[in-house]
């Protein structure tokens, strides 16, 4: 069951076309994609994230690591307001997305999520839809009706998700007919079809076998040319393989954040070192 707080209720008509903020393309100095300051989140009375301050630079891959329950998924979800789907969440602090406040009263979560896409731990294609329908559903939701445009985006997204060659003859088959790894890449294609600016990935490869994992990792690497990617993983090898920067979370706090090579070669904090050397977690 999903509860949605009052703020998310579509009581006001959504004007999708109007974005939450003016485009910042003209800006020459690249803003960090996310500037998070003093962010705390509670589920009911339980604190999930405490006082996190972090800047996530644009067009890079940032990995978030940490033991189970450290708040890494919560942190990821508050970057596109997905955590609001869980009842009784409370948030404090600021999250700026390209300089604009994600949580300002005028910001519409549906628009936020359109610009900040997400891929989940378990692949979740829509079972009643074909492969093609799964990929373009986001565009259709946003009012794109032009057949040629949809077909173009379909092929583009599937190519970007490295899935095109495997499915190009089966586009009308259900999305569920694919293997687990293919389904996950289908979900990635679905997420990038709407051309978001950021991709959030919540342990995207944790349910996949090593070969499928490898493919998804390669894909993440290629996507980073176009997108800012934030990936939560509990696999430290994966973090070190794919990411440019790594953030280590522990019991709701950001312990250390820096270049991935540095975090893994010479962590500054004792906790980080203990974790990456496998002494706990």
């Amino acid at each position: 069951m999903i509860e949605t707080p009052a703020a998310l209720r579509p009581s006001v008509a959504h004007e999708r076309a109007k974005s939450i903020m003016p485009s910042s393309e003209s800006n020459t100095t690249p803003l960090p994609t996310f500037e998070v300051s003093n962010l705390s989140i509670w589920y009911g009375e339980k604190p999930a994230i405490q006082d996190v301050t972090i800047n996530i630079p644009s067009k890079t891959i940032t990995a978030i690591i940490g033991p189970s329950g450290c708040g890494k998924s919560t942190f990821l979800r508050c970057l596109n307001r997905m955590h609001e789907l869980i009842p009784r969440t409370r948030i404090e602090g600021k999250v700026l997305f390209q300089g604009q406040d994600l949580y300002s009263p005028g910001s519409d979560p549906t628009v936020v999520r359109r610009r900040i896409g997400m891929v989940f731990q378990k692949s979740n294609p829509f079972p009643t839809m074909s492969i093609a329908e799964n990929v373009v559903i986001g565009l259709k939701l946003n009012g794109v009706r032009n057949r040629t445009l949809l077909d173009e985006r379909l092929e583009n997204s599937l190519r970007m998700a490295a899935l095109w060659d495997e499915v190009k003859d089966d586009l009308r088959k259900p999305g569920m007919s694919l293997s687990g790894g293919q389904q996950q890449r289908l979900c990635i294609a679905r997420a990038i079809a709407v051309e978001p600016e950021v991709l959030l990935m919540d342990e995207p490869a944790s349910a996949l076998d090593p070969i499928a994992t490898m493919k998804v990792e390669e894909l993440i690497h290629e996507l980073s040319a176009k997108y800012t990617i934030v990936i939560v993983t509990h696999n430290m090898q994966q973090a070190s393989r794919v990411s440019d920067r790594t953030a280590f979370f522990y019991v709701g706090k950001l312990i250390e954040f820096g270049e991935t090579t540095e975090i893994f070669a010479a962590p500054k904090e004792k906790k980080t070192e203990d974790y990456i050397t496998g002494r706990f977690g």
Partner: protein
Amino acid sequence: MMITPAAPSLAGSIAAKMKPPSRFGDKAFEWLTLAMALAVVGLVFLVGWQLARGSSLAIQRFGFHFLTTSTWDPVAEQFGALPFIYGTVVSSLLALIIAVPLSIATAVYLTELAPVWIRQPLVSLIEMLAAIPSVILGLWGIFVMIPWLRDHPFPFLKKLFGWTPFFSGPIYGVSMLAGGIIIAIMILPIVTSVSREILRSVPNLQREAAYALGATRWEVTRIAVLSYAKKGLFGAVILGLGRALGETMAVTMVIGNTPQIAASLFAPGYTLASVIANEFTEATTDMYLQALFEIGLVLFGITILANLVAQLLLKTMTTKMTSRVAQ
């Protein structure tokens, strides 16, 4: 060599003290459940057989005409069930047309939209509706619903749609439409609560997938919830139809009990279940009783037919999906 619970080398250990598993319990369990399952099937056949036996003379005498003629004259011993069949089918379909959108909308509200604190009270209220005895609902129908329908919604409908045959003719209050409405009220709780269970079983991951694409709540409900639950919801509707076809007491009290086939929904009608309930005590001649038994058989047949058709539809829906997988 047989595998024993404990390896020979473990003699004296706790494993050696364990009893070998009993096959008896397993077998008994299997037979018991099988017997229960067969008893249910057997009961259905028994009912069908009894109904057929009770109406054998009528079947012989009227044959197929029983289903296609409209005269119901116990004095002359002329029996035709067509108006009752018509009444049952039309009142049930009316009930579905009214109840299904309401039920599914209620279920969607309860699972997707309602604030948590309001959900349980609402669910309890709906379940309470199911607990109202049929005859009480019928009384309410006669004394409250019918006068109100007669004075307000019916004249309004007539004004709007009076040019169609369905809403023309005199308004008595008691009518096919009133019957449909009362059945709708009766099947609403079951269709709602089954639909609600089905919507609740939709994985959250599906909703999240839609939300993450920037879908609004309505869009999430449409693409992730309703389409996922389509088949289950269809099942809920069929369950409602089964109930509607057999609904007796409340309908009998508001439908007017006139064996006629009228296009107008304002005209009184009669259902299979109602005629049995109304006339069993008066069935003095053998042929009369036989005819009522045959009415029962027809109702039994319609209910089974409706379920079979539903199963078939469900199957074609499923095979269409799986054959797409197999291609």
